[in-house]
């Protein structure tokens, strides 16, 4: 047995996605929350590439590429927002940035 079942790749993708969700929900540092989002995007990319292999088409690779581009744009803007929030509030804890709650 030398070939890997395709469901293993998809299960790995699901595990990584759930870990990303866990980090997003449980962590309090805004930078780590942001990294969890990147982890989820990576998991979805693995699914895209796996489906591309299954269908023997290149389209999934293009989608993974676009996800990467959007992730890069999102990281640039998001980290700039984090910088601004830190400059104005002096904290990275998301529980302390709750002025929209009231």
């Amino acid at each position, binding site marked *: *047995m*030398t*070939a*890997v*079942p*395709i*469901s*293993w*790749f*998809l*299960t*790995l993708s699901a*595990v*990584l*996605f*759930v*870990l*990303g*969700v*866990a*980090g997003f*929900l*449980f*962590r*309090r*540092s805004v*930078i*780590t929350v*942001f*990294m969890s989002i*990147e*982890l989820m995007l*990576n998991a979805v*990319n*693995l699914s895209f*590439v796996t489906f*591309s*292999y299954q269908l*023997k088409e*290149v389209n999934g*690779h*293009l989608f993974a*590429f*676009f996800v*990467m*581009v959007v*992730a*890069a*744009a*999102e*990281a*640039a*803007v998001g980290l*700039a927002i*984090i*910088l*601004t929030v*830190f400059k104005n509030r002096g904290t990275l*804890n998301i*529980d302390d940035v709750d002025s929209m709650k009231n």
Partner: protein
Amino acid sequence: MDVILFLIFAVIAVVCAINVVVQTHPISSAISLVGVMGSLAVLYLLLGAEFIAAAQVIVYAGAIMVLFVFVIMLLNAGAESKRGRSFMAQLLGAPLLIALLGLLAYFVQRLFPRSVAVHFGGFTHGTPLDIGRALFTTYLLPFEVTSVLILIAILGAIVLARKEMD
């Protein structure tokens, strides 16, 4: 051989991903995330996605993570304060996440029985040639829109992060 490679790098990816979530210091999380991305690049190569593997290493592990580490250093972010999470998250978080994982794994197993198998070299159309051809014919409009999106992101980042000059 393919199974061994897959298992090695899948285990590395999952262990690093767990490390991302449980480490309290952001810089440890960032380094673990680089580990996840590197092992995912190897898995992309296994799936025949050469271009995406290279882009993963360059764009994700290179550019984006350097940006993260840069911001962590710039803000001098220390270890996360251990404060109580909300009651609902404590009570329902873990069971709901396990339920989500179980549901995803169940449907994956149901929808994709073991008939399709991945072996190295089974898909050879992930080269930069094929990607480029698809990108500049079928996906030309999304590609151009993407360049506008990047431009807007650059402008937004500069506007947000600059010092007030007046």
